[in-house]
């Protein structure tokens, strides 16, 4: 069990978020049906802030610890993403009350589900074991399915929830099958131990050296040390070279499930319909926080469990997979977004394109021998993307009202003059999404592409392909500028055709202002966040340090893969 006091302390962020969720459920139930629920949004915001505060407070920076016998990692990486998810949740909770009242769905469950899904995201990123990871993913996903179908009077919302749910459940099944196969091949669900197995026996089996079968036996010892049945561990130790194809297959299935969650082409089919139908504040949350959680967790899984040389670059290495996913997502996302008439749909395809940019960072990490410091741009990118996306959907939900949704480009006509602040904020979000300075999106894109160029500069086979990827990315994002600017054109160069009803809920406006200010601030003064994201990625616990080299003396993952850094 390790240190029980620290164990309990370490999951406090998760516990706080869940407790606030349950508190809101109880408050919701013991209240008259007719009373307004807006104050619950305030409680939710307090909950998110407290969660972020707790997460940052109990662990000195620069340290990393495993808790619950190696089930989760509490390190800088977990902390920085905890604060991102809490920020996303708080902003969504501020944007939502107005929209929910307008659509006759003013119920407290919304905020409770929001808190639960953020709790799930926190554990997804912290997970050191595929079992924890899967449960966390399901907590997040089921909460978001319900949120997508939240305004049940709207057929579109039900359709969105239904499509998202069915396809998401399918992806979960694929993920589970992948986990099962990886477990079958390596005998463990612990990410660090899987990494050892892939780096050792499985890899050696691939090169024909079937004699050196030490790591899996070591895993058996680890399993025994963790309190597993010793005889079971002995069984596990018997796996060998034949496990290679099985391990690769399992890892591929896990990657497919991730690609679905982050809506990368060709697993993006659900996104446009789900984004169009779901309640607008929820779409912002789905597009930003859920995608960020998927990318962050994928980066942890890839750097800790799937980093071995042969697995990364070999015949079926994930570099190729990420290369193809990144290329397809950038091209398809941007080109299809060009022809959309519905803004939510356009933003859906734009989020697909953003998934592509994020995957460029993965490809770069893969080319550079698994040097994950190349991925620090990714963390910054996720911050910039999340804040701008939530802001953009916040503007759409602020402008829309019941029976008069703000869905099409025409609905934005003249808004820039009638509501100068809102128009300005929307312009900032669009500039950030397009990657134009001084918005934060520019720095994010710059860092990601820079890491790819730096990775290719090291030379080696395939570095030309990486340059090709970067050039394609820049070209299609130039094409993407068209549809982002189209929003601004409608904001400022068309005559106003509609009236936005004045609503008494100021919180939504404040949330939009916060998003806009943060987007600009991160774009102008990115230094601090760049530093902390470099630190967070550098301190990621559980992985073998830097470029992974397999040696006979490869350190045993201590029970549960605890590894203190610094």
């Amino acid at each position, binding site marked *: 069990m390790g240190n029980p006091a620290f164990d309990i302390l370490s999951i406090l962020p998760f516990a706080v978020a869940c407790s606030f969720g349950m508190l809101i459920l109880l408050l919701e139930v013991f209240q008259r049906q007719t009373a307004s629920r807006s104050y619950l949004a305030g409680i939710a915001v307090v909950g998110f802030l407290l969660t972020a505060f707790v997460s940052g407070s109990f662990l000195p920076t620069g340290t990393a610890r495993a808790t619950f*016998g190696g089930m989760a990692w509490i390190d800088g990486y977990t902390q920085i993403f905890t604060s991102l998810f809490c920020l996303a949740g708080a902003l969504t909770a501020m944007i939502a009350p107005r929209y929910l009242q307008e659509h006759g769905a003013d119920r407290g469950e919304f905020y409770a589900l929001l808190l639960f899904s953020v709790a799930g995201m926190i554990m997804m990123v912290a997970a050191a074991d595929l079992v924890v990871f899967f449960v966390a993913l399901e907590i997040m996903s089921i909460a978001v*399915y319900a949120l997508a179908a939240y305004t049940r009077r709207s057929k579109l919302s039900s359709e969105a929830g239904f499509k998202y749910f069915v396809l998401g459940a399918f992806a979960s099944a694929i993920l589970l099958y992948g986990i099962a196969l990886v477990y079958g091949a390596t005998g463990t669900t612990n990410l660090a131990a899987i990494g050892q197995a892939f780096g050792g026996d499985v890899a050696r089996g691939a090169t024909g050296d079937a004699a050196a079968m030490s790591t899996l036996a070591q895993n058996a010892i680890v399993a025994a040390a963790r309190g597993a049945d010793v005889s079971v561990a002995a*069984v596990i130790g018997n796996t060998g070279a034949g496990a290679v194809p099985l391990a690769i297959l399992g890892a591929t299935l896990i990657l497919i499930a991730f690609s679905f969650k982050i809506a990368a082409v060709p697993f993006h089919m659900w996104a446009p319909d789900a984004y169009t139908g779901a309640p607008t504040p929820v779409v912002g949350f789905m597009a930003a926080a859920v995608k960020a959680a998927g990318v962050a967790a994928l980066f942890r899984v890839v750097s800790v469990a799937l980093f071995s040389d042969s697995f990364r670059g070999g015949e079926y290495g994930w570099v190729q997979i990420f290369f193809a996913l990144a290329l397809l997502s950038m091209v398809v996302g941007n080109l299809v977004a060009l022809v959309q008439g519905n803004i939510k749909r356009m933003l859906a395809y734009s989020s697909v394109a953003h998934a592509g940019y994020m995957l460029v960072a993965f490809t770069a990490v893969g080319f550079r021998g698994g040097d994950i410091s190349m991925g620090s741009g990714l963390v910054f990118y996720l911050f910039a993307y999340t804040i701008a996306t939530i802001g953009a959907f916040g503007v759409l939900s602020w402008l829309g009202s019941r029976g008069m949704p703000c869905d099409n480009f025409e609905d934005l006509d003249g808004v820039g003059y009638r509501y100068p602040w809102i128009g300005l904020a929307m312009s900032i979000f669009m500039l950030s999404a397009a990657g134009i300075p001084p918005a934060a999106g520019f720095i994010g894109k710059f860092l990601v592409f820079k890491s790819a160029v730096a990775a290719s500069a090291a030379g080696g086979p395939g570095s030309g392909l990486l340059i090709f990827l970067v050039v394609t990315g820049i070209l299609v994002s130039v094409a993407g500028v068209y549809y982002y600017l189209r929003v601004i054109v409608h904001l400022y160069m068309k005559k106003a055709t509609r009236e936005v009803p004045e609503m008494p809920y100021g919180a939504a406006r404040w949330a939009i202002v916060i998003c806009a200010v943060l987007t600009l601030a991160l774009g102008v003064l990115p230094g601090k966040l760049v530093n902390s994201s470099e630190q967070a990625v550098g301190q990621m616990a559980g992985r073998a340090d830097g470029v992974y080299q397999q040696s006979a003396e490869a350190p045993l993952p201590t029970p549960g893969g605890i590894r203190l850094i610094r």
Partner: protein
Amino acid sequence: MAETIFFIVFALGALGFSAAVLIAKNPINSAVMLVCSFFCLAGIYVMLSATFMAVIQILVYAGAIMVLFIFVLMLLNIRDDEIEAPRLSIHQGIAILAGTGIFFTIALSIAAWSGSSSRVAHDTMSDTFGTVEPIGDQLITSYVLPFEMAAILLLVGIVGAVVVAKKRF
């Protein structure tokens, strides 16, 4: 020897009933075939010494989840004449090709795995493996975090169901 025979019976049963799920015209028949398939799987679990899993398979899947399936079928209320005879479209052709490819990939991987030195040594397992007690031990020591998280997951499931399905909400 006896073990092999049992395995063949259960495996063929699971496969046959699963095929019947797909082929059966009436959805209720499909559901019943699925229950039979679950029973065969439970048999295989017992042979793998995963007795607790076998019981859960029957209690939760063949019992509770099938009830839900049948309720949903009745909820959808599909009439016989609405069920079209399956026609082979180009999409289905692609799906069949892809499915076959995936099947052979998985089958070959598993064959390579079980053909090598990695066969599970069944006799080294302890007698109590897979019974309730070792599972309980694991559940509240090593896996206590996922155990508590499962409670949150169930809670989210309850809230989600109420949000989506409660009539007067």
